[in-house]
């Protein structure tokens, strides 16, 4: 296995976080907010 330098590890880490963060930044889609609301309070008619 190749021994990677810290700069390459850092670069891979940065790419990884960029890819991941792009999805995280989209926030919580409404379907999940409504679903948990209904689970939490079955009487609530979440739309």
């Amino acid at each position, binding site marked *: *296995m190749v021994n*990677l330098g810290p700069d390459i590890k850092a670069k891979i880490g940065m790419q990884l976080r960029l890819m*991941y963060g*792009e999805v995280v930044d989209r926030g919580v889609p409404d379907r*999940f907010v409504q679903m*948990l609301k209904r689970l939490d309070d079955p009487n609530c008619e979440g739309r």
Partner: protein
Amino acid sequence: MGLRKNVREVMLEAVPSLRAFAISLCGNVDRADDLVQETLLRAWGNMGSFQPGTNMSAWLFTILRNLFRSEYRKRRREVEDVDGSYAESLTSLPEQNSRLEIVEFRDALTLLPSEQRESLILVGASGFSYEEAAQICGCAVGTIKSRVNRARSRLAEILSIDRACDFGPNRKLARSQIRISSAPIGLDR
């Protein structure tokens, strides 16, 4: 208001990261969202098995991973993006280079064995410690460390990274510039 308001809030907080993890596992946004939904339903229904005081986020990731793997065993296919939905969904990024870089990087990730990929993402992007990642994946800490190292090496190999600056779509440009600058002087004369 339900008594489990706090649980609901903690679960909602975990959703963006769970989605990012799910997308990186299955490569398809719609399927990832179904996976997250199933995870939340399972977690809610099995709240009794959650140990208070432990990391709920890690618990949710464990459920999601197990669901994905059992689904995978059934389907016998792991990474798919048949409709290109992930690449198409990358519209929020303003810079073309960032989009290209992410798509290229994600494509490289899909070439890794699933155990290496999930280990690298859990530690390198989701922010879990090696210990937590080991707990999520149900293996030894040393195994996670080894998988992360192998994943990094393989990615460097796939993306042809020899130096930190030799990375992403810009490296092609950099290489073409190198070729141009190393062309014999006076060629057109």
